[in-house]
């Protein structure tokens, strides 16, 4: 028996928004520690890793480990039926082939439940090693979304370079070039509005704008976002979800062509 009750139903709706652009289907792995999801997009360029800890739920019960393969398109259709104030409960029997979503209105006078068929997914799990990144950049998530949107007009790919002075995002394309520089904030009124850079060595990597734009769909989950980079390893874009967990995106960098040289 699996049951997870979430008071802030809107949170699940936002999580769904953050996932469904990259993934068509994914396995939700439930254990007594919480709910985890790890999946790559079809082209194996990016990876989404979602973690919702059991403590973040109002009520959480998971008798045995359970992996529920869900079609995210269908799931998002169901979650659209919930209003933002609703309390959402996810339920599944052990070895069941369906999952049930229950939406309760805050004053308890309306209760709706939706049952969805599960899928049998054969997904590869990747082992992601713990890495010390050469640069970590924290910036307001809305700022990051804006940068990605603006620069993707110029070209397919974006260079993120981080130096002592700050971080520079740039893109080049047919119409010209665009550069955005962010310096470390000198004085901070609100912590989440600060730009904070921690750097061991300067890094410059190129990424596809298309994926970065998909990542920014998670902007509503968190006020700030953290980018972690090291030379020649995937970029990590992390959005913390208050009190309950995080969603992390990994993106493989673009590599110089060996023949082109």
């Amino acid at each position, binding site marked *: 028996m699996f049951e997870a009750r979430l008071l802030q139903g809107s949170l699940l709706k936002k999580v769904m928004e953050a996932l469904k652009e990259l993934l068509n289907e994914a396995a939700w792995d439930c254990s007594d520690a919480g709910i985890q999801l790890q999946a790559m997009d079809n082209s194996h360029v*990016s990876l989404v890793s979602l973690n919702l800890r059991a403590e973040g739920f109002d009520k959480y019960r998971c008798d045995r480990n359970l992996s529920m393969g869900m079609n995210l398109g269908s799931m998002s259709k169901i979650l659209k039926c919930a209003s933002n104030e609703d309390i959402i409960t996810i339920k599944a029997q052990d*070895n069941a082939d369906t999952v049930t979503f229950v939406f309760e209105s805050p004053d308890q006078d309306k209760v709706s439940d939706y049952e969805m068929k599960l899928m049998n997914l054969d997904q590869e799990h990747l082992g992601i090693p713990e890495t010390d990144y050469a640069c970590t950049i924290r910036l307001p998530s809305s700022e990051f979304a804006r940068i990605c949107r603006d620069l993707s007009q110029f070209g397919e790919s974006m260079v993120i370079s981080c130096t002592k002075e700050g971080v520079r995002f740039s893109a080049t394309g047919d119409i010209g070039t665009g550069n955005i520089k962010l310096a470390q904030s000198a004085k901070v009124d609100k912590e989440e509005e600060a730009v904070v850079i921690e750097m061991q060595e300067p890094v410059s990597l190129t990424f596809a704008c298309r994926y970065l734009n998909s990542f920014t769909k998670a902007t509503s989950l968190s006020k700030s976002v953290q980018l972690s980079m090291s030379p020649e390893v995937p970029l990590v874009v992390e959005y913390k979800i208050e009190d309950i967990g995080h969603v992390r995106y990994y993106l493989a960098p673009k590599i110089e062509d060996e023949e082109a040289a």
Partner: protein
Amino acid sequence: MGIKGLTQLIGDSAPAAIKENEIKNYFGRKVAIDASMSIYQFLIAVRSEGAMLTSADGETTSHLMGLFYRTIRMVDNGIKPLYVFDGKPPEMKGGELNKRAEKREEATKQLAIATDAGDTAEIDKMNKRLVKVNKVHTDECKQLLKLMGVPYIEAPCEAEAQCAAMVKAGKVYATATEDMDSLTFGSNILLRYMTYSEAKKMPIKEFHLDKVLQAMSYTMDEFIDLCIMLGCDYCDTIKGIGAKRAKDLIDKHRCIEKVIENLDTKKYVIPEDWPYQEARRLFKNPDVLDPETIDLKWNQPDEEGLVKFLCGDKNFNEERIRGGSKKLCKAKQGQTQGRLDTFFKVLPSNKPPTPSTPASKRKAEESKKGSKGGAKFKRAKSYREANRWPEPLTFHEFPADLARRKLWLQIIEREDWIPGDKAKICAMHFAPECYREATASAVKRLNATAVPSLNLTLEPLPNKPTKTATLRIKNSSSVGTASSSTATQSHVDDVEHQPIISVDYGHEKAQYGLKDADTTTESRKRISNIIVVDLIKDKKAKYPDKPKPVVIGESCSSCLEMKKDLREVEFQLAMVKQELTEQKKLVESLKKQIKNGA
């Protein structure tokens, strides 16, 4: 062409080996393409109003059209194509080639008839059958590829074999062809529908040889033999043996020699002079160029050259050719997108392969027919998969060192018990740090300080009422088996297991067990799992007619799945009975005392 019925067979018995993917997901991959096959395809498929495309002076240009646009389509998607042309056909292929020539003759006749009758559909069909790739076609294609800056090589013999050799050497990612031969030649990944037109919207089908072998549990040699049995280009097959029977035979006998030995010659006629050994040799050691010596280079296209070649005498539209050339140029420059799998390792999959309907049906039948052990094994497997336990599970003996042995027994709460030399604890109960560094033998061994620490307490029962209900049912059945098996139990020579289940079922009346079984479930939440391992042995002794060897998975199943298992119920029953006997004795002695006192 290819291997008869192999696609179907793989679809049925190894569905996990087939994946579908969009062409755009192959960016950055180098792919070897069987050129002769694709040219043939183009000649058939690239047509306008049923006739091949021709230049002003009537020369065919379908192949060039196809090659140009479909190569651009691949390059546009970031794929780096490499064309491999056939060399001389091997002598063995003579028979097959003759057959094809015969078919062609037949088609010519049919065409004449159709033309007389004016049946356009038939004319069309026969015309397609008459298509043959000749030297002019291939030479023109080579010239075009050179102008496009796409590399090609000429194989000394079969193109598929050359492609396979390059895949094996890691020079290219996959072979793109429609011929299933490539798998037999050992190409690990085979892509189908790669050169199909955009308009068809056909997803690319990926076949993985390693997964095929794994799912069918074959070695490469056995797989080659299977392919020969199915029917390849090099020799005949045994009449009356189709895909299914061929697989069954190889499953049973593992090589063609043994199949022939055991075949009912009255029913099936083995072709005289069947050169299967020669065919096998061709598959295993084909004539290929050493992949290491091949230098692959993708160059800039020669736009002027292309225009001259295609627009001059072949009457192509200049604008479109220039457009295509721009696309080739554009794809050349810049960077390739990396893939996450190159940075992070893929963890071994814990999911069971999902068989398609026919295979699953077969499996279901098997498990129905098969022994109880088979079904149990399956259940154990699913349990293990659900709990993400990577195979294989190892078992560990109790330490010889007395102090440590005592510690182990304390941990499992069975201090009063002396483990026999066959008592073992499965790897589920050991933390990873308990193991020694991997040795050459690859057998996982415990280090000197290892103690069982995991999964010592059973999970709480999920659903009590149903649990007790099943307990009751199972109890009654188990009592039946227990009493029936008492006779055989006396034969047990593994005396050391007796302390664990020292209860003789037969002497006890069944109703005691029935009444008290559910009360004990509560009190015995903590049950050491070792007992179960021993219990199977006991069980084995009870059913001596059952196959002797204990599959690791099976013994593990009991270890993991005991609360659901009949054996556990039996064990609990045994404990209750033991208690009851003791109490009865006590009552008896008390009674005696009372009597004596009286």
